[in-house]
């Protein structure tokens, strides 16, 4: 059973602000969804699959720059806060 504390922890982990009002509803919804999908554990317990083996294709290519579709300047101006060709953020440390 997930409680409000669990949701608060997940919210900080996900960088999403969840209001006090919403927390209880969100906890209930998430809990019911988890109960439903959680039955997957029984499926694996009842199967013979030990490990997952993937068929893979080698898609490595030469380390050569493909023609870029945009320029750094075009990308920087998309940032909500930018100045002089740089993206601005608040203090990190």
């Amino acid at each position, binding site marked *: 059973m997930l409680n409000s504390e669990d949701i608060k922890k997940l*919210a900080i982990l*996900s960088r999403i602000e969840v209001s006090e009002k919403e927390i209880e509803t969100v906890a209930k919804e998430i809990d019911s*969804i988890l109960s*439903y999908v959680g039955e997957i554990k029984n499926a694996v317990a009842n199967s013979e699959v030990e490990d*997952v083996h993937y068929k893979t294709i080698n898609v490595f290519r030469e380390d050569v720059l493909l023609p870029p579709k945009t320029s750094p300047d075009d990308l920087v101006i998309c940032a909500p806060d930018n100045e002089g060709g740089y993206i601005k953020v608040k203090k990190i440390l």
Partner: protein
Amino acid sequence: MEINLKTQTISKTKEHFKNGDFTCEDLVKAYLEEIEKKDKNIHAYLEIYKDVLEQAREADRKMKAGENASLLGIPFAIKDNILIKGRVASSASKILENYVATYDATVIEKLKDAGAVFIGRTNMDEFAMGGSTENSAYGVTKNPHDLDRVAGGTSGGSAAAVASNLCLVALGSDTGGSIRQPASFCGVTGLKGSYGSVSRYGLMAAVSSFDQIGPIAKNIEDAELVFNVIKGKDKYDSTSVDIEKSTKIKRKIGVMRSFINTDGIDEEVRKNFEDSLEVFQKSGYEIIDIDLPSLSNVLSTYYIINFAEISSNMARYDGVKFGEKIEGKNLLEDYMKTRGQLLGKEVKRRILLGAYVLSAGYYDSYYGSALKVREIIKKDFERAFEKVDVVLTPTAPTPAFKIGEKSANPLEMYLADIFTVTANIVGCPAISIPSGKTKAGLPLSIQLMAPYLHDHSLFEIGKDFDKAL
């Protein structure tokens, strides 16, 4: 010539252009008039491009100069999560409300090379999470057959636009049925090719190991024509592959009786499915019962992987590199408020769920288990495809439901994906084809799934069904 939008198809339209019956500009004007009349009620489009007539005139100029690209002058609607350079793409979210794409998706480059004209961007569930387009931050798209009902999702706008003749053909994206289910609800054809058949470069990622862009069209021929233009290995998408060339089909169709007869399947859907089997039999197909026991876990497998990959893909929407931003007191608050206030309920719910299933202590029991069961499901399908060419199901367990009917309980919305998620899990191609209507006039569709890379079988078998219907 008076343009009948209802009867237009890609080949008919190109014929009309060739004969000088009308120009691309005439055709686009007809669509714009129809949009003016109908779209305030349907809300398929989020934006009609202001330069669409100029695009049409450019197409006419090219035709006059003797050019004959495969989709020259064909008017498209494009789902709001596919990037077109210089145009807004918001994924129907507030967090990208004014985001202007800085490059063309590969599919858009290919459509441009083929001469396509873009009318506008279509409504969808926010960030491709949902099953009805009710999760759009800009309002729901209504079903053209019954305005009290949903158009389906997440490509609801694209499906509604094609169904109500507001464009000739559209692009959607499919993660768990998001092309096929709205196509089914709106009575049009929707195709999701094999995983990797169409480049994902320039598609806003939802579930990277499931997503595919695909056509929503009025018939199978148009879907095939568009698919042939947009498909192909792409340097910019290392998960892209080339499709197999045609191989002989055995005329055997697989049906999973126990799966089809579960609870929650509408009686009219069941009856229509049985009728469709008869149509195939009359066309000389053999119906073979197959058993895929792992399918009882298909929804859990799908949704665990969905939550996990989505929460990872949504991390980029933080108000720093692009999109909108809500100011906080410090950097952490910038993130918390921006994402908290600008992302919708379903998106936030899935991010939290994803964080949970991927967290230490739970990773193995949820995500690890889902990956294992995914392999079991894939093996079940490989075994089935040794006996049959395609697997047949209804596309959706019900016809279009009423707006608001399923939005109270998120789990109920998930259960409606039961028939479509499988194709995304195993990576195989799947097409939804209209197969009839309910007594109330709501569209019904069947879904064909073919082996991985055998996309062409869907067109061949689908056309046989269509002819016999």
